[in-house]
């Protein structure tokens, strides 16, 4: 008899339908993967099982857990289940813990509530649990506060809270999406061990096919609240019988066609970075002195030839964004010089930087954050025109915006709309339109596709490749996702603790990484091909 | 709901016992509007000082009675020389100050010399100007020689500013007043109340009250609730505006008396267009005294035609000189070449008669085309801008000092009025002490002021007293600003 059975579950919040006749089941010590793009209702499924839905939610159908009818259970019955028999881990570790309570209190609280254990006993079990999730009490005493821990460490505390009472079922809703590749691998290993050790059922929810393939025995694919296909992971993904499954799988492995970059590699370097360093003042620990400075970027040198596409890869916190900002002259280096098109841009005033800025623009990660919602698209995309010597007339400006929109595959009439009238993918196209309107020589893209769903990500990467061909724009791609780097760039620089530890042709570096940091990245990065192959092998 | 009722009942019982039980009472709480700045009547002009201390704690050679008459006080009797310049006072013996020290002629000499000295800070220094020298004949007799005969000298010695103090305690009276009166000072909680208790070594008939507390209640709004809730039993100077709420309440007695206060619309006689007689007369014609009295003083107080209070024996009724006649007023303005009116300012000090009266007068003058801008000011600003710098057009004030018609003859007084014939009459008045002659001169003075329409004469400030119906002995009128408690007692 399976641990968790959901059949023809329908859910509406207010008057918007979320789930329609959904089926899913999880057996003890089985890992069920629930995959879907944003807005598919996968998180809502988890919250329905936990009965943590907002007031206006109405659920019909049947959910049975260990013989108990969840939808009919009273709140007290649910309180007894939550944290004891069903544990849940959430996506955003930075905000998942109460900032004003110590990690010890937050882990022990669940134990004391369910088992009426004494304070000392509960704290002892909490210490053991934290140790089990990789936070030894020597280095992480119970008295620490959440803000004193990193994202990865906080996620371990959340896992400790969820598994403190050896639940029968663990629900993990995008547990590693906010973490970098190496941390993701460690957390997934931890989850796999915990599930095996106490024979827990695991419902793993994710938008990343590769992660689910590595972890899940069976898989359910969800689209707009409806189950597209479900079954054994390896067989479902290799046969790809359902068209949506096929589309998802291909998009995850998509590599845009890249003919020889036009006129590449010749002539004087477009961007020259010479031993640039950036220090941040350490925290002031007492009146007289403060902690030693933190070195975010340490003596980095690199050069980008016109039209070349370079990737800057590394774990979160390795300094890649800081370096990008210094290149864009949005941040001043502590030492070292940056030369763009032959002129040094470090230490120059805003006015002097105008010509340089005309030739380098930026694309950001969050499609929703990179546009001022109060302005129309025309004004937003035309913002860089502010840098032109001669201010274009209104008509000229509209014409240039129309041209840019056309180049990124959007319609002229979109010019008069507001940002919120566009989808995530379309907004990223607008972002690119803004970047290319002044015909820049270099575009710095800071994690341009990591916030997008798999299918849309592929289209944007194609757009980047096409613009590189047509306009000969050089790219500096910042990403922690190796598949993106491999797909779009010629060379790669691997950064670790502020230093460039390895550089070379993208495929060569990723196939045989020499530096220790690069190796860790390559092994940790989930790769759908490898995952499917290994699954098929296991099932023989 | 039932539980809630029992709780409310319980609290009512507990709190009610707190209020004082009704035996024959010997204590009294009196409400006064303003707190005295300090407690030395010889060193400050504030009326509040006399309201608490005059006749209760301090006594002078003479005392002014309930009807404004001059009565003997520390001076048992006196003889006046034929030329009216030397007064010989026979003092009571066996009188003691509250600190136990003896009172004798030396204290009188000290007090009078101190008041008329060059560095004296006495607010009414003019009262002692006529004194030439003071001689101690023996401990019970003192002789005072004047530079020239002064009809009002005995009256002047009855003022609060002329009380007798002991040299040893003169400088500390501001904080701890030591006098010879029937009550002695007990305590002063600044901003809250001043408490007097019966003096055990009083030379005269002892007071019937054991304890009298003067509680300071600045806001008229608080008078009525204080009375109705029994916190305060008497308001000798009640606000006429609030009278409507309490006058029909059987628990209280409302006593309307007169004062020496002439409430006037002062005019800056040198400032155009007020320097023209027709303009001032037009103003007098425009004023409807009855409406002002009804609106600003709840219908209490008698209209006046010149600078004399009807309660005064030398009063001449000149209210008929300028009857309320809007047409005549407009005609006079046309004569003065101002038929389409003019703008002016009306500066109002804090008291109710000014702030309420001002609104009514502004409305009445607006009917004849004079557009007044009302500017409320505090006393400090009024004294500085109006009284000293004469930077004003019109203002409203009530002159409460007794027999003060001579202010119109003072040089540089804020009316800016200069009439030699009037000054001559006042000069003659000062020299004569014969009653009939003084009465005739005062009549002439009042007539000149009315004819010149120096100011707009409005009404005599009424003394509105209200106190517990079972209380007796409080003054009906206020010839001077005082609360003489010597005769006050509870009836049951």
């Amino acid at each position: 008899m399976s641990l968790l059975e959901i059949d023809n579950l329908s859910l509406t919040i207010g008057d918007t339908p979320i789930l329609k006749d959904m089926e899913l089941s999880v057996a003890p010590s089985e890992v069920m993967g629930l995959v879907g793009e944003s807005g598919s209702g996968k998180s809502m499924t988890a919250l329905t099982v936990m009965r943590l839905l907002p007031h206006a939610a109405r659920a019909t159908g049947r959910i049975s857990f260990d013989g108990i009818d969840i939808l009919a259970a009273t709140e007290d019955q649910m309180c007894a289940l939550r944290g004891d028999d069903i544990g849940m881990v959430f996506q955003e570790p930075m905000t998942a813990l109460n900032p004003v309570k110590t990690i010890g209190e937050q882990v022990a609280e669940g134990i004391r509530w369910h088992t009426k254990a004494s304070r000392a006993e509960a704290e002892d079990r909490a210490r053991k649990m934290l140790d089990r999730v990789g936070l030894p009490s020597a280095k992480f005493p119970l008295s620490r506060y959440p803000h004193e821990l990193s994202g990865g460490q906080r996620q371990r505390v959340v896992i400790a809270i969820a598994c403190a009472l050896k639940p029968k079922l663990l629900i993990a809703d995008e547990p590693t999406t906010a973490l970098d590749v190496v941390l993701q691998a460690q957390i997934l290993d931890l989850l796999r061990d915990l599930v095996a050790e106490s024979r827990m059922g695991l419902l793993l929810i994710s938008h990343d096919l590769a992660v689910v393939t590595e972890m899940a025995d069976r898989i359910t694919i969800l689209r707009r609240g409806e189950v597209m296909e479900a079954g054994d992971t390896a067989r479902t993904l290799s046969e790809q019988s359902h068209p949506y499954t096929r589309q998802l799988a291909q998009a995850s492995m998509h590599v845009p066609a890249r003919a020889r970059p036009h006129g590449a590699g010749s002539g004087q370097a477009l961007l020259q970075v010479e031993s640039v360093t950036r220090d941040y003042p350490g925290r002031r620990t007492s009146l007289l002195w403060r902690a030693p400075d933190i070195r975010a970027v340490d003596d980095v040198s690199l050069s980008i030839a016109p039209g070349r596409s370079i990737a800057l890869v590394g774990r979160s916190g390795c300094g890649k964004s800081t370096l990008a900002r210094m290149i864009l002259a949005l941040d001043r280096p502590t030492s070292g010089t940056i030369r763009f098109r032959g002129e040094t841009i470090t230490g120059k005033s805003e006015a002097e930087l105008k010509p340089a800025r005309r030739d380098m623009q930026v694309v950001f990660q969050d499609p929703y954050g990179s546009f001022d919602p109060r302005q129309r698209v025309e004004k937003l995309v035309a913002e860089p025109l502010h840098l032109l010597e001669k201010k274009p007339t209104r008509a000229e400006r509209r014409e240039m915006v129309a041209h840019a929109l056309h180049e990124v595959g959007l319609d002229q009439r979109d010019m008069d709309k507001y940002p919120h009238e566009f989808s995530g993918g379309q907004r990223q196209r607008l972002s690119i339109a803004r970047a290319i309107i002044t015909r820049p020589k270099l575009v710095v893209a800071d994690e341009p596709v990591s916030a997008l769903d798999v299918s849309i990500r592929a289209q944007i990467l194609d757009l980047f490749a096409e613009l590189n061909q047509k306009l000969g724009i050089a790219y500096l791609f910042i990403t922690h996702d190796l598949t993106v780097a491999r797909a779009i760039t010629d060379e790669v620089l691997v950064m670790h603790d502020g230093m460039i530890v390895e550089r070379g042709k993208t495929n060569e570096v990723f196939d045989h990484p020499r530096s220790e940091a690069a190796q860790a990245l390559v092994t940790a990065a989930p790769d759908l091909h490898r995952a499917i192959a290994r699954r098929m092998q296991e099932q023989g | 709901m039932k539980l809630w009722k029992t709780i409310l009942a319980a609290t009512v019982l507990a709190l009610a016992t707190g209020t004082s039980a009704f035996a024959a009472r010997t204590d009294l709480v009196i409400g006064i509007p303003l707190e005295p700045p300090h407690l030395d009547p010889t060193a400050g002009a504030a009326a509040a000082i006399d309201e608490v201390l005059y006749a209760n704690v301090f006594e002078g050679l003479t005392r002014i009675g309930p009807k404004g008459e001059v009565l003997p006080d520390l001076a048992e009797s006196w003889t006046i020389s034929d030329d009216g310049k030397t007064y010989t006072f026979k003092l009571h013996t066996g009188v003691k100050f509250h600190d136990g020290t003896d009172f004798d002629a030396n204290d009188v000499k000290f007090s009078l010399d101190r008041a008329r000295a060059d560095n004296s800070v006495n607010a009414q220094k003019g009262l002692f100007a006529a004194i030439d020298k003071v001689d101690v004949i023996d401990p019970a007799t003192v002789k005072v020689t004047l530079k020239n005969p002064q009809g009002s000298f005995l009256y002047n010695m009855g003022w609060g500013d002329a009380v007798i103090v002991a040299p040893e305690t003169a400088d500390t009276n501001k904080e701890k007043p030591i006098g010879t009166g029937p009550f002695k000072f007990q305590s002063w909680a600044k901003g809250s109340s001043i408490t007097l208790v019966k003096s055990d070594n009083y030379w005269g008939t002892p007071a019937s009250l054991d304890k009298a507390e003067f509680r300071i209640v600045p806001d008229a709004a608080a008078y009525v609730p204080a009375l109705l809730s029994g916190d305060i039993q008497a308001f000798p100077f009640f606000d006429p505006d609030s009278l409507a709420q309490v006058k029909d309440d059987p628990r209280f007695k409302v006593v309307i008396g007169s004062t020496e206060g002439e409430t006037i619309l002062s005019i800056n006689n040198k400032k155009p267009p007020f320097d023209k007689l027709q303009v001032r007369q037009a103003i007098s014609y425009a004023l409807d005294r009855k409406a002002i009295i009804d609106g600003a003083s709840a219908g209490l107080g008698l209209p006046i035609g010149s600078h004399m209070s009807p309660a005064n024996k030398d009063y001449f009724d000149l209210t008929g000189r300028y009857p309320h006649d809007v047409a005549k007023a407009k005609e006079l303005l046309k004569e003065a070449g101002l038929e389409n009116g003019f703008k002016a300012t009306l500066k109002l000090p804090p008291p109710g008669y000014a702030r309420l009266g001002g609104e009514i007068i502004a409305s009445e003058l607006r009917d004849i085309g004079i557009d007044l801008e009302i500017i409320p000011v505090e006393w400090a600003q009024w004294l500085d801008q109006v009284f000293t710098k004469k930077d004003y057009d019109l203002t409203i004030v009530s002159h409460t000092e007794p027999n003060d018609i001579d202010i119109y003859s003072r040089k540089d007084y804020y009316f800016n009025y200069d009439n030699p014939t009037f000054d001559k009459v006042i000069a003659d008045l000062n020299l004569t002490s014969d009653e009939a002659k003084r009465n005739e001169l005062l009549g002439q003075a009042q007539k000149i002021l009315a004819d010149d329409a120096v100011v707009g004469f409005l009404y005599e400030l009424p003394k509105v007293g209200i106190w517990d119906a079972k209380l007796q002995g409080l003054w009906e009128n206020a010839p001077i600003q005082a609360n003489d408690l010597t005769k006050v007692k509870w009836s049951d």
Partner: protein
Amino acid sequence: MTTYLLKRLAIALATLVLASMVVFAVLEVLPGDPARLMLGMNASADQVELLRNQMGLNAPLVLRYLRWVGGLFSLDFGRSYTYSVPVIDLVRERLAVSLPLALIALALSTIIAIPVGLFSASRRGRAGDTVAMGAAQLGVAVPNFWFALMLIYVFAVWLRLVPAGGFPGWGAGVWPALKSLLLPAVALALPQAAILARVTRSALIEVLNEDYIRTARAKGLPYRAVLWRHALRNAMIPVLTILGLQFAFLLAGTIIIENVFYLPGLGRLVFQAITQRDLIVVESVVMLLVAAVIAVNLIVDLSYAVVDPRLRSRQ
């Protein structure tokens, strides 16, 4: 932690010095002459001049400022012109009324507002919430002097439970003194309680949307336990800010209530001092109030650090 404290202290002192200059300058401009006021209409001009010298009013500006500021540190604020008594005694008497009044009003306001805020936040959108917030809206809208008058006529005049005003002084026993402060405290507490309830509610609603509340519920804690053990403490910071502001207002913003209840409080002392141009009293008491506000802000800042550990380690 100490650096956080010292930095705030330094700022507070700088603000105080700045405030003293502003206060002194403003009062020099105040028209009206205290000496003339004391001597009245009949005193002559040279008598007034004589008194001005005795009171040191004619000394040069800077000298008077330095003498006054010097005195501030030794709590010798100089003597009041009108009462001719050391200002510090005056202030001590008036504080004996204003301080307890402010504390009672603050306590009343907190006791009423926090539970109401909690109640309506936990029932957001339902009947209880709209009624509570409707009452809070009304509480803010009523002018407190109008409300005070209503209270007097009901409780003092009609029911005769409490005195209609005045302050018998602590000497007359604690209960009579407290009784006389009861009505004014209620009149002051109502609008403050209304504001505090609304702030508590919106702060709590903001916190209840946070992720860690969902984590707590996922732990199995029922709604009530989550509200008390997790939500309330996080909502404390905006509530503490309002409490700080309210205490500062209650110290000096109660002139009108002190007038209606004829209480000898600090507000009325300064109001009368302004009308009587008793500059020394005005300067000193305003400085005292500014210092009190700055001290209250300092305490509120420190309490932030107590409530939120993140602030403790901030540089």
